[in-house]
């Protein structure tokens, strides 16, 4: 069975600085997708960034980027120029294939990120 591990229950960063959140996963599949979602106190899960396993290039979305190491099964999230609005719980998620019964996400336990002014 696939598993997702986030080893940092809590992290803290100073406003305007950079922070990296760690995620490792275990799978025997070759075709899968990885996601980072954030969940602010409003409870709304918001997609931050996604990565297709077949792509070697790391995904970037504005201040958010990932370091995808397929052989090491590692998928870390870097947040640059941290802002107060980045404070949330960040979930790493895995999904194998696409469509059909392969569609559900498997989540890590989350990392609670605090941003200090």
């Amino acid at each position: 069975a696939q598993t997702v591990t986030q080893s940092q229950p809590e992290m803290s960063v100073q406003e305007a600085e950079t922070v990296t959140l760690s995620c490792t996963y275990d799978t025997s599949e070759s075709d899968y997708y990885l996601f980072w979602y954030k969940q602010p106190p409003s409870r709304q899960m918001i997609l931050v960034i996604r990565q297709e396993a077949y792509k070697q290039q790391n995904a970037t979305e504005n201040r958010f980027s990932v370091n995808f190491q397929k052989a090491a099964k590692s998928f870390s999230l870097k947040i640059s120029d941290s802002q107060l609005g980045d404070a949330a719980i960040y979930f790493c998620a895995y999904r194998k294939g696409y469509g059909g019964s392969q569609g559900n996400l498997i989540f890590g336990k989350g990392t609670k990120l605090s941003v200090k002014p």
Partner: protein
Amino acid sequence: GAGVSQSPSNKVTEKGKDVELRCDPISGHTALYWYRQSLGQGLEFLIYFQGNSAPDKSGLPSDRFSAERTGGSVSTLTIQRTQQEDSAVYLCASSPPPSGRADTQYFGPGTRLTVL
């Protein structure tokens, strides 16, 4: 456009009662997912609907849980004879038709269920 909506936002019930949680997916989305978020278990997949296909119920924790999706749109998650361990936030997500790869799931705000 409108996102995924869920109702009620919060639900308090007594042990042994039945509850119904509703999810309205984004218009045009063919896939709909239910997840449960609890302190002890984190985020768990419950059930998945894709178009008119039979749902994937592999994540439902017991036969007290059931879900239906009417007309390929609105979904209702029903929990019968609620127990205190059912207390959690129930999240619904929808995603567009498979168009190649990595259909993104868009989440609703969740329903917080408290069983007294």
